[in-house]
């Protein structure tokens, strides 16, 4: 390797060592476990080859939870990434009290999952919850949210949007680095606000958008805590990770659950690779 290459490698080395020491062994163990019938507390562990995977593909619960998760991901990811970006741009201006706004919009991201879920159970309560209460003031009878199969997905989308402010730190960090000279020359060319945003801000932010998109994909598919606490009528709240968790810790079928995990891994990897491939077309790097 050339000298410059070697230096780069040394900068990355700490993480590689950490990977080898802390991550690799458990991951390899997880590969093996997926081919066994390990029950966590059992003293016998048997090799079953592909039996877990075969059982998974025949399982109605698997396909159902995959569909629920996929459908949620497809809608929520673009929605949240877009909203997050818009909020960040709005909060990047030095308007009055912007510091306070930034904290307020970021706050949803600082609470841990269970407490939030419990609060949302109240917010979405069909009879006494906040949303339906406000709707009733303007004469609308709110839906039964988590108790109505058709409204479970919207309920979870609302919860995701509430947390959309979580990305603002990433954008704000980078937004202030956009050279003002670019905006100034655009002004001189007579560009309006929307044009400036679209042709200067967005391209400069694409690396950060890329980050939030990948993270968004991973977290959407791995959605767990609120789905586990809140569920949803008609099985509409049975996300993939909830199914996995049940198999692992309620039925002690860790081998099966691990196989489920690897399938999810492959699915997430698939979408990530696609986005990564398109990277050179839209992510702007200096």
């Amino acid at each position: 390797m050339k000298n410059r290459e070697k230096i780069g490698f040394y900068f990355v080395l700490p993480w590689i060592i950490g990977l080898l020491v802390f991550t690799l062994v458990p991951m390899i163990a997880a590969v093996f476990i997926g081919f066994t019938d390990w029950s966590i507390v059992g003293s016998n562990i048997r090799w079953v080859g592909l039996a877990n995977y075969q059982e998974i593909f025949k399982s109605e619960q698997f396909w159902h939870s995959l569909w629920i998760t996929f459908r949620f991901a497809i809608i929520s990811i673009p929605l949240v990434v877009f909203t997050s970006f818009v909020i960040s741009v709005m909060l990047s201006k030095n308007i009055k009290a912007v510091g306070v706004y930034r904290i307020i919009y970021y706050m949803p991201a600082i609470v841990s999952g269970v407490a939030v879920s419990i609060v949302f159970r109240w917010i979405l309560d069909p009879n006494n919850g906040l949303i339906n209460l406000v709707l009733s003031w303007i004469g609308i009878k709110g839906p039964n949210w988590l108790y109505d199969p058709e409204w479970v997905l919207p309920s979870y989308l609302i919860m995701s949007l509430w947390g959309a402010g979580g990305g603002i730190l990433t954008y704000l960090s980078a937004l202030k680095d956009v050279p003002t000279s670019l905006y100034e020359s655009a002004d001189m060319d007579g560009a309006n606000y929307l044009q400036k945003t679209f042709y200067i801000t967005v391209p400069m932010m694409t690396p950060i958008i890329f980050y939030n998109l990948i993270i968004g994909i991973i977290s959407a598919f791995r959605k767990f805590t609120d789905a586990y606490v809140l569920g949803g009528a008609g099985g509409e709240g049975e996300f993939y990770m909830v199914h996995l968790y049940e198999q692992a810790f309620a039925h002690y079928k860790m081998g099966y659950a691990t196989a489920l995990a690897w399938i999810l891994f492959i699915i997430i990897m698939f979408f990530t690779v696609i986005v990564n491939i398109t990277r050179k077309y839209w992510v702007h790097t200096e």
Partner: protein
Amino acid sequence: MTTQTVKAEKKAYFRKQATKGVILHVLLILGSIVMLLPFFWMVSTSLKTEPEIITANMSFFPKGFHVANYRRAFEIIPIFRYMANTVLIAILKIFGEVFISAAVAFGFARFNFKGKNVVFMILLATMMLPYEVTMIPTFIIWSSLGLTDNYTPLILPAYFGSASFIFFLKMYFETFPKDYEESALIDGANHLQIFVRIFIPLAKPALITIALWAFMGTWNDLLGQLIYINDPVKYTIQLGLASFNSLSGEILWGPLMAASFIALVPIIAILLYAQKYFIEGVKMTGIKG
């Protein structure tokens, strides 16, 4: 153009800006109310008496200021001790996590070594496998080293960088123009100096961001801390909050909301302190613009 029309145009322009400003503020305020509502309900519940909570009348405002819940919360768990424990873990972690992650991200962002893309994909891959399935093998490894009921398994891995932080910083560094290094290299600086003297200071808001994330991650990590800590003396704040369930499964809502709110205060305080780094004006370095 006469001065009168210029003045009139200026007035019209400012009025338009003012209306835009008002609209913006109205939107932001409405959004703020939505964002804050759950927190308000949390505080409101913490101030309700037990009968009020039990009868689930769901009213927004408590009937009075029933601070007994807060007193009760402190009786049930030593909140401050648990917060101190958590802060200890967090600080020890942040130190390693932030700087090592930055160094690794620098390596990914600015160099092209053989196999870099593969290594980067592996980095992303480590974020994709649900930890539920690696959790027990990892525990078995630490346990065989005798490191259970111990903070070490929670802290040590941080000193090798954290995948999502590395990912973010890599993308962040990629927004820096290459001219920074070019001129420094010409001046004879080596890469380590460039990293420490140029990138780190410029990346302050991003570093603050991940320090914040690292802190929040520790503050909110229930499962990891549950698995590795046994002795209640060593409990963290999340384990403390989990202690509000009774044997029969009924939750003590009032004290729990009180304790949850108290647990939020340090994070909000840190946020308040950190956000000023995001308001700073653009640094004039002579290379930009």
